[in-house]
């Protein structure tokens, strides 16, 4: 069963400090999977939020990656994607705005897409803030 968050709640979760041990992040090693690498990190927010950073990168194409900030709903196994920093490996379409582009892009959770029955982070914007996965992770932090 999915749950909805409004724009204020989304913003509040984004603004909540998420202290991360820099040493821990630096020591993380990706797990080899079929066709890609992945690594995850659970982060306890400064208030009540529980979060997870999920990172994926294709073995064949380093520009095909995703760094995702997920909110974990307490006492459930439900996840809510707050932000997703994607590489330049595919097009993206914003259905409500009738936009399409092929570029680095950042997915953002919005109330309006949820209300239309779509994925919470189906809206994305092009970005020139990063050009590789390391840059995307810096943006996420």
């Amino acid at each position: 069963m999915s749950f909805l968050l409004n724009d204020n709640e989304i913003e509040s979760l984004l603004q909540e400090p998420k202290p991360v041990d820099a040493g821990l992040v630096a020591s993380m090693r990706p797990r080899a999977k079929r066709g890609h690498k992945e690594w995850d990190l659970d982060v306890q927010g400064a208030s009540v939020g529980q979060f997870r950073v999920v990172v994926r990168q294709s073995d064949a194409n380093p520009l095909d990656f995703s760094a995702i900030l997920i909110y974990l709903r307490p006492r459930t196994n439900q996840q809510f994607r707050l932000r997703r920093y994607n590489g330049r490996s595919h097009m993206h379409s914003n259905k409500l705005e009738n936009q399409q582009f092929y570029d680095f892009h950042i997915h953002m959770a919005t109330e309006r897409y949820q209300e239309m029955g779509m994925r919470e982070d189906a809206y994305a914007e092009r970005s020139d803030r990063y050009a590789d996965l390391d840059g995307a992770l810096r943006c996420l932090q």
Partner: protein
Amino acid sequence: METADIQNAFKEKVCEQVELVEEGLGRFRVLVPFMFDDGDHFAIVLKRSNGSWTLSDEGHTFMHLTYDIDERDLFRGNRQKIVSNALSTFGVEDHEGELVLAVPGDRYGDALFSYVQALSRIADINYISRERIRSTFIEDFQHFMSERVEEGRRAFGWIDPIHDPEGKYPVDCRVNGSAIPLFVFALQNDDRVRDATITLHQFERWDVRFRSVAIFEDQEGINRKVLARFSDVCDKQFSNLAGNADRITRYLEEASAAG
């Protein structure tokens, strides 16, 4: 509008949304209008190797699915069947996570149609998981119990042969090996909870000794009154499976040791 005009409109609309972007020698990004449920289009590359052309996702499709699904779950049970069927139906091969289709001769259009259909079927696994298809939760539950309780001590879909020969009151998983057996129920919705409530009441009526435990797919989705009635007869409840794996494991071990 004439039929021919409609046909032309279809062709133009579809054609204009397919584009090739050169990305180097013998390599093109194929932009198509087909996408996942989050607005990201399929990642497809047309590349030349050993004198022939192939379509490839370079591992993107499975990688995208792992945003929501554990990779191990992607390749077992119903999900694995969906993947296998999609690949075999459309002649796509899985090369260590990279989905590949060789273009036969110069039939680029046919190859792209087949390839996209295969990716679409596989991408639907994400939708299925998000909608929490019932069979997947039961699979996950059975897999969980199988890993934690040895085969000789568990019975899925157990029927009491003495009191219930007609099998009207099944138990999702009976765990024996201690003085008092454990009746474990996997509950996804209100109907299943009601059935489990009736079953537990019946076993009480028969004066059968047992301990009961319920594992919900999502307890918060159950009707309050239904849950309240169930809570009166069930000894232990876990609100979901994934978030309580360690606790459930400990409970099963302690229940076995208690006797």
